């Protein structure tokens, strides 16, 4: 099992402003108390949404009906920092998000997202802001992300995006689910293990 090839992602986008949005906010820890990932999407940003919506009805972008059905999540810097919980990208993906575009991502979140076939691409701050403004002005604007060309097209404009070469290749080849790859040459794994003094014996 390796996963499908992912070349492009497209759809409307939901803008979520703010740096350092941590995984506790994406999915509060109380929803980690389960032995499956099922139904997590119902609690995506639950506390943030409640707090924003208490101030102004549907003011959290993920509660705003104008953004229902969005396939692209637009974020700022250091998105997904904090806890390593895969429940965070799981909840985002189960909510229907197929790609995330932001200034930067936490390393663990990024790796978890790759393993789920959820591309996270980066853009400079000015581009992130421009993209958010487009989605804020027109929630129905169609974004098209091309991982082959590393371009994001919307409203007749085209923006360059960045993605680590390894992640890009994994998506394009459909090898983002790494288990099979890691088991491919298991004899080599055994050889490395046998060479390590703390396994072979000091």
């Amino acid at each position: 099992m390796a996963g499908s090839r992912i070349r492009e992602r497209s759809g409307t986008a939901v803008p979520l402003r703010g740096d350092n949005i941590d995984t506790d906010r994406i999915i509060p820890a109380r929803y980690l108390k389960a032995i499956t990932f099922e139904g997590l999407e119902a609690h995506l940003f639950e506390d943030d949404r409640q707090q924003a919506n208490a101030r102004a009805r549907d003011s959290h972008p993920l509660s705003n009906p104008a953004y229902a059905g969005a396939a692209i999540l637009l974020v700022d810097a250091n998105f997904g920092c904090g806890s390593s919980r895969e429940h965070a990208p799981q909840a985002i993906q189960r909510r229907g998000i197929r790609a995330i575009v932001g200034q930067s991502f936490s390393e663990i979140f990024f790796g978890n997202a790759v393993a789920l076939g959820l591309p996270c691409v980066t853009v400079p701050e000015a581009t992130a802001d421009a993209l958010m403004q487009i989605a804020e002005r027109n929630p129905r604007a169609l974004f098209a992300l091309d991982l082959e060309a590393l371009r994001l097209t919307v409203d007749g404009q085209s923006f360059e995006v960045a993605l680590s070469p390894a992640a890009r290749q994994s998506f394009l080849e459909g090898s983002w689910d790494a288990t099979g790859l890691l088991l491919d040459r298991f004899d080599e794994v055994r050889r490395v293990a046998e060479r390590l003094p703390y396994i072979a014996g000091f």
Partner: protein
Amino acid sequence: MPATLLQKVWDAHAVRRLPNGQTQLFIGLHLIHEVTTPQAFDMLRARGGRVAFPDRTVATVDHIVPTRDQRRPFADVMAEDMMSALERNCREHGIRLFDLSSGHQGIVHVIGPELGLTQPGMTIACGDSHTSTHGAFGAIAFGIGTSQVRDVLASQCLAIDPLKVRRITVRGRLQPGVYAKDVILEIIRRLGVKGGVGHAYEYGGDTVDRMSMDERMTLCNMSIEGGARVGYVNPDATTFAYLRGRQFAPQGEAFEAACAWWSSMASDRGAPYDDEVVLDAAEIRPTVTWGINPGQSTSIDGSVPSPADVPAADRDSVAEALDFMGFAAGQPLKGTRIDVAFVGSCTNARLSDLREAARVIRGRHVAAHVKALVVPGSQTVRAAAEREGLDRVFADAGFEWRGAGCSMCLAMNPDRLEGRQICASSSNRNFKGRQGSPTGRTLLMSPAMVAAAAIAGELVDVREFVGAELAYGR
């Protein structure tokens, strides 16, 4: 050619270069717990896989365990489900489990080191971001997600990108009342919460050389809060002395041979670093956070900043933090009233942390409006503390003395904040809602500062806390 410890460990564990350019890295020790593994075992099962190296996999239970009534089945049905799933998975795959009846259960990052499982030169992975803790021993330790837990279960390997290395040198003497916790909070404040992304942090310098293993663990533990997935300290005589005689450490002659190999894995003089940061230990003061990420901190004699005083890029974050915390710009930190005091977590719940907290509270009593609890990092820590009578010191002072676990650090058990409570906490994250109440507020600080705040009922400078017998300067 001189090399860093990271490079040497990487080379010793690299299986091959994957077609996408990543390294397939062998993982010497896989630590697992109840929260991030049930789905991984299910995925493995669905593919007909088996755990490749069950003897390199060790389990414990920490996140969901109640710290007061630990009788099975747990009152919380979901917690009981998670516990049972871990027991079932460990049984089915022949994995050693340190459960509540083992006498060694505890926070995974506390028990790995204290059992001698964590050793220099190893690669370690665990489905928890604070896995960086194990770097204190000169191991390279990665926090991973559940799909990667599945990968490690299936293959004992990770597909991973190379890391840069930032050398963080701390020089000079720490003042009395200033701890490793203050050092790491200062590092994060200076370098930012995303400053370490893509890097391993190598901590060194004479201040770090003088630190105990407990202190080095505190330092490495919070690397991830600065964005660095990996943090480490080169192994030395302090490391070896800690490991000698521990249950899973090499014994007898093998131990001497191990010390030689461990020493050889330390960074060489002249090793190449991608950059270096130098801190003066004498300048570091007891530090507390005022915001909603661990980089938003200041010294206890400081005040809450104004959005107008910070660089434009941080303005929104500061405004958001003040709004959530209900703090006004310019408000002094000292005197901030607290509701709860929590000594615990993988950052600061080892024996030395409990000793420092106890030293501050001995002969005093928790303020009437404060709920205070101590949650030892492991059953071993708890037992050792009880042998020293620390449980009595805490109980006499009005602290609740609990069983071991993660507890109120992330509130997946019954220990949590209520409403808008403010908690002085020795844990690692002050994120919105982190301690279980969506509107609860967390102030991070050292265990000694938590203890002093519990007694005073408000934030105080532990250095001025009348009568407190202060810790050594280091």
